[in-house]
């Protein structure tokens, strides 16, 4: 049974629509939520948590409707929206003192552990922290109340590579008992390659794919060929870049036999995203 089940979530703005977004996440796994800027990642996360008013759809956390059991569901969720950006003149100690009261399962030892691990000093004010340290503080709060589900919007942005790697280790530790899951959005595809089990890809407010990372990768191939190979095969290309000597592009794995005359290679997540986001299916060579 999924720990998180999003069904047909809708949000309509004058210029953007979140269109029946559906995906689910089993306990014990990490799901990467990807898509380019403005694709609807943050809108989806906020709509899931009732931070923006949804126009339709349901969200189930641990088999309970979020919107009918908001308080109980929020106790089981740790939510981080980038860096902690509230109460800039307050000390971390003061903010934690308030926050911990809302969570019956607050784990002070775990909190102290994260403070130490992230080198956070409680007597510092929020405004005295760097962007990366603010992200770490937000994560320390989210990780310290025994949340079953962590929903993290760009948690690794602003962090240096060492801190990012450390954080990804934390993620793996958090889910290793098989009862917790993490949904996190990111632009840093290498983070997904390192730790995500599943991937949900959103484009223009619609879910393009929600599957395990290996299956997602395996369903695409990168191709490279001469210009003469391009024209007849163009309809099968999801996206391509033309250059002076030929082209490179992305195809579905089942179309690989049609590209036998070209070089065909496994696709990586970043290439899949880049080629998929090309609106007209190909990109003209730069002059």
């Amino acid at each position, binding site marked *: 049974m999924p720990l998180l089940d999003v069904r047909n979530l809708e949000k309509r703005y004058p210029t953007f629509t979140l269109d029946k977004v559906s995906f689910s996440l089993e306990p014990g796994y990490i799901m990467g939520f990807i898509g380019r800027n403005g694709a609807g990642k943050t809108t989806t996360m906020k709509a899931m948590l009732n931070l923006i008013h949804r126009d339709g759809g349901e969200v189930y956390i641990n088999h309970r409707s979020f919107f009918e059991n908001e308080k109980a569901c929020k106790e089981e969720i740790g939510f981080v929206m980038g860096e902690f950006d509230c109460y800039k003149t*307050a000390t971390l100690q003061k*903010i934690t003192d308030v926050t911990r009261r809302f969570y019956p399962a607050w784990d002070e030892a775990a909190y102290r552990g994260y403070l130490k691990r992230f080198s956070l000093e409680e007597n510092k004010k929020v405004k005295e922290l760097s962007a990366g340290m603010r992200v770490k503080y937000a994560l320390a709060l989210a990780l310290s109340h025994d949340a079953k589900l962590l929903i993290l919007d760009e948690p690794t942005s602003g962090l240096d590579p060492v801190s990012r790697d450390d954080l990804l280790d934390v993620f793996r530790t958090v889910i290793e008992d098989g009862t917790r899951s993490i949904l996190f959005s990111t632009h840093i595809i290498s983070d997904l390659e390192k730790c995500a089990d599943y991937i949900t890809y959103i484009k223009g407010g619609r879910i393009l794919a929600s599957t395990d990372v290996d299956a997602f990768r395996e369903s695409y191939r990168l191709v490279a060929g001469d210009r003469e190979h391009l024209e007849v095969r163009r309809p099968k290309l999801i996206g391509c870049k033309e250059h002076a000597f030929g082209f490179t592009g992305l195809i579905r794995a089942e179309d690989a036999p049609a590209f036998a005359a070209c070089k065909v290679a496994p696709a990586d997540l970043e290439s899949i995203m880049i080629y998929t986001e090309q609106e007209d299916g190909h990109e003209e060579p730069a002059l």
Partner: protein
Amino acid sequence: MKNLLYKEYKLCLVPMVPLFYLFALMLLIPSYPYLVAAFFTCNSIFYLLKQASLNGDMLFSAMLPVPKADVVRARVRFVVIIQMIMFILLIPMILINHRLYPQGNPAGTDGSLTLLAFVLVVFTVFNAICLPGFFRDEAKIDRMFLLGVIGVFGWIILCEGFMIAAKVAPQVPLFAWVEGHLDCYPTTDGAWRAQLLVLGIGALIYGLGTLLTTRRAIRYFEGKDL
């Protein structure tokens, strides 16, 4: 709710709130429109709302494991607590005012239960304008405060103007009754009864106003995209 009120106290309270309680001392000024003292409490609440807005308090609160409606209820209750402290502080000030100036206040309402009733309406008007506006669009709190100031001073001018008129034209029967029963420190049974009735009406307006203000603010906040 207890935890949300604690959050209001620890993270949202601004120094202007306790500092502006000193304006209760305005009742020690001879000949002054004492209702203005209540405005300064409203002013301190504006600072509280403004600071909450700058601090990202709405989003922080909405992310806590509480229903969105409770975030509104806690904020309104905190504002009510601030206003009730001022209300209570005004009571000894009225007693001292009477000792200092037994002849009354030629510049407006005398220190009396009527004054306290008018204060409650000042708070009601301010809350009705500013609180739902804050939860509808916190970025426009300055504009809401300006409207609140217009509303509050409209009421203050109405009250104080009426009481000054009652003082300068005691030959008018209504004014004579007001001067003898409402606009005076209550010493007779008739004045006590009349002023307690006015205070009761003021309390009723404040209670109902707070209820309606809360409902409206909840409706705005629940439909708001954070």
